[in-house]
């Protein structure tokens, strides 16, 4: 059986989540591996969420937010950008493959982009294989 | 019964002990030595001064699982974790640490409710005490002679070991030790000269110098009771204290623990883990009230518990002078100095 990765998506309510809805309503095809959690803003994402997701068995984590400058709360994603960049470096230095964590800016109208990103990211994680480092054995 | 073996052949003895049960001995690690269960007889290394963490973890591990349960399932389906106790040999325990087991025994099994985990592990274990090397001076942090413990006191051990040049002398102290030594075919019989050396070393150990101040249980307990309200004194000695748990975690006679439930993927374990009176939330009640919010109050609790409360409740001082807390302290707080100062105060 081929490896089907588990991917956690954390999507901002105003852009990426709406973008995902749009991808759905326009019947775009994208892999089923993504489970999405909606947050009000990408800056609401505590880096611990990401560490914990990997511990609980996520093979990849995809964060979606509004494009810089478009944040519903004006500057939320600008803070998030810095914060998530640091989280990424921490993950890398602890020894997780860099390709397992990605941040993308996807607006409410970019249903296409959402589908593309998910497809591409899923394939990328698939190629990396199961995430074993952080994962807590059940 | 006195037996001997060459130190270079210590792994043969280790291998034979491993055939009879779990061997727990000091192992060289990055930061220093620690007691671990031995998987390869060659790991046993007697070239240590003392371990970073005390051997209490052999009987009172940092985590002890009580019950396994599943969330959403009936409480009747929760299963207590069975203690699979096999015979264990605690190898190379310094005399001061051997003494700590006696002190912990009073608490865990001697009074009130009996702690089954401590009791069963303790019963299944044989202790191989190991004298300090009298030819090298004691570490500056040690003060076991203050507590009346000699550097080569065999009391409390089942078998007591003393290094003699390239040889290791082993003497059975208890019937359990007699039986064990008789079964160890790798050991050879000691000579009368060895016997003299053993006895001389034990005697010399009593005179061995560590930091010393005259401490007697009852008076020091009273002293600290009187000092309790002396905030100025406690603030002074706790000035540098960071209120971390390093001292209590390495201590051989600290027994405070927390009971916590940890659940993952719907399965959980109720377990106890070491806790420290130095942590801010140690005494935080559900009402929000916390009787010890200040650093000095927490350090006072630690010192008074060992040098006052424990004496009044159980008899002995709850400290063996192993010096671990002083060595582990990030800011060099030294319980010996505090006691010393208290006696002058």
């Amino acid at each position, binding site marked *: 059986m081929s490896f089907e990765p588990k991917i956690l998506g954390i999507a901002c309510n105003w852009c990426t989540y709406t973008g995902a809805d749009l991808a759905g309503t326009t019947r775009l095809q994208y892999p089923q591996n993504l489970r999405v959690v909606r947050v009000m803003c990408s800056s609401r994402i505590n880096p611990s969420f990401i560490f914990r997701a990997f511990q609980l068995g996520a093979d990849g984590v995809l964060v979606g937010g509004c494009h810089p400058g478009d944040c519903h709360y004006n500057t939320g994603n600008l803070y998030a950008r810095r914060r998530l960049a640091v989280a990424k470096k921490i993950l890398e230095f602890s020894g997780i493959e860099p390709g397992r964590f990605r941040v993308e800016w996807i607006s409410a109208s970019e249903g296409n982009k959402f589908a593309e990103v998910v497809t591409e990211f899923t394939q990328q994680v698939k190629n990396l294989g199961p995430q074993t480092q952080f994962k807590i054995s059940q | 019964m006195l037996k001997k073996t060459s130190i270079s052949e210590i792994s043969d003895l280790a291998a034979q002990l491993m055939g009879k049960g779990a061997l727990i001995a000091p192992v060289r690690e990055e930061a220093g030595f620690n007691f671990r269960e031995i998987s390869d007889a060659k790991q046993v290394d007697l070239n240590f001064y003392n371990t970073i963490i005390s051997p209490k973890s052999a009987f009172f591990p940092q985590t002890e699982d009580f019950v396994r349960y599943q969330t959403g399932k009936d409480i009747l389906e929760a299963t207590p974790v069975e203690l699979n106790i096999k015979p264990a040999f605690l190898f190379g325990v310094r005399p001061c640490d051997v003494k700590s087991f006696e002190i912990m025994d009073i608490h865990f099994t001697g009074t009130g409710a009996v702690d089954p985990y401590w009791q069963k592990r303790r019963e299944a274990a044989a202790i191989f005490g190991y004298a300090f090397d009298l030819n090298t001076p004691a570490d500056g942090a040690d003060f076991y002679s203050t507590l009346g413990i000699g550097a080569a006191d065999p009391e409390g051990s089942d078998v007591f070991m003393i290094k003699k040049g390239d040889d290791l002398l082993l003497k059975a102290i208890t019937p359990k030790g007699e039986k064990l030594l008789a079964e160890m075919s790798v050991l050879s019989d000691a000579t009368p000269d060895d016997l003299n050396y053993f006895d001389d070393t034990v005697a010399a150990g009593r005179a061995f110098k560590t930091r010393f101040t005259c401490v007697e249980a009852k008076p020091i307990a009273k002293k600290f009771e009187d000092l*309790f309200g002396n905030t100025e004194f406690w603030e002074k000695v706790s000035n540098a204290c960071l209120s971390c748990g390093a001292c209590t975690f390495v201590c051989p006679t600290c027994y405070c623990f*927390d009971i916590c439930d940890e659940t993952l993927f719907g399965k959980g374990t109720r377990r106890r883990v070491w806790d420290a009176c130095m942590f801010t939330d140690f005494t935080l009640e559900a009402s929000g009230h916390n009787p010890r919010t200040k650093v000095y109050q927490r350090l006072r609790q630690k010192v008074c518990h060992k040098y006052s409360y424990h004496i009044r409740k159980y008899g002995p001082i709850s400290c063996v002078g192993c010096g671990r807390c002083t060595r582990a302290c990030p800011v060099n707080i030294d319980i010996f100095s505090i006691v010393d100062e208290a006696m002058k105060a």
Partner: protein
Amino acid sequence: MCLNNPYIPMPVEIIKIIDEVDTHDIKSFRLKFLNPEDEAKFKYLPGQFSELSIYGKGESPIGIASSPTQDGYVEFTVQRAGAIVPGLVTAALHDMDEGAKIGLRGPLGNSWPIEFLEKKNIVVVGGGFAFTTLRSLINYMLHKDNRSRFGEITVIYGARTPGLLLYKDELIQWEKRNDIRTVITVDKGDETWTGRQGFVPAVCKDVAPSPANTVAVICGPPIMIKFTLPVFFELGFSKENILTSLEMRMKCGVGKCGRCNVGYKYVCSDGPVFSLAQLEELPRDF
């Protein structure tokens, strides 16, 4: 389950939940043992407590509110904690329904010293939510087999508002009886309240129980205790004859985990009941 392991709880079922106050954050839980042998073993006296245990949440030490004379169940009155520290166990308990099963460890601690209280007059002073083990004591003493062992019984109980009084039905029963004097007070009444108004210390002064052969059993919030004690001193009560129950954070409940250590006592196993004379010997560390 393990009979010799003091850390393993016994399974019990919640057979009744009583919403005690109009703020709905204090409920009484009536528990029945699932194993008859546990029930036979669970012999307690008023003043003792137990650890209520919910796997996945933790344990909470709670005073036993029922009296050993009440057969077939044990009752606990629990306040939902969480104003300052999130109380996982009490919150989970409050969200439970009748029929749910939880764990129970106990009975733990000492009790109100029944032998000491015998043949004496008793003044029970309670404030607010801390009335639980006092209620246990009162019901114990009022039982027909026990009533003759004690002298006059006076109960002084206060709460902030009428709606916050616990065990309202029992209070009414007690008021009707003539072998117990019941004085109920609230800090501030409402339009339907016809009883006494005023703080507990003031009421104690009013009632002025005689100290002759009398023991005062006091339990309440620290501020109430602070102001009530001088009243009893003035009335002439000795420190040996004033009893109270101490609160400390606890985990194991059997004197092992070291958490509730105050001086040379462990509140869980040497307490929680102390006389004022005993408390004065301890360092002020609680």
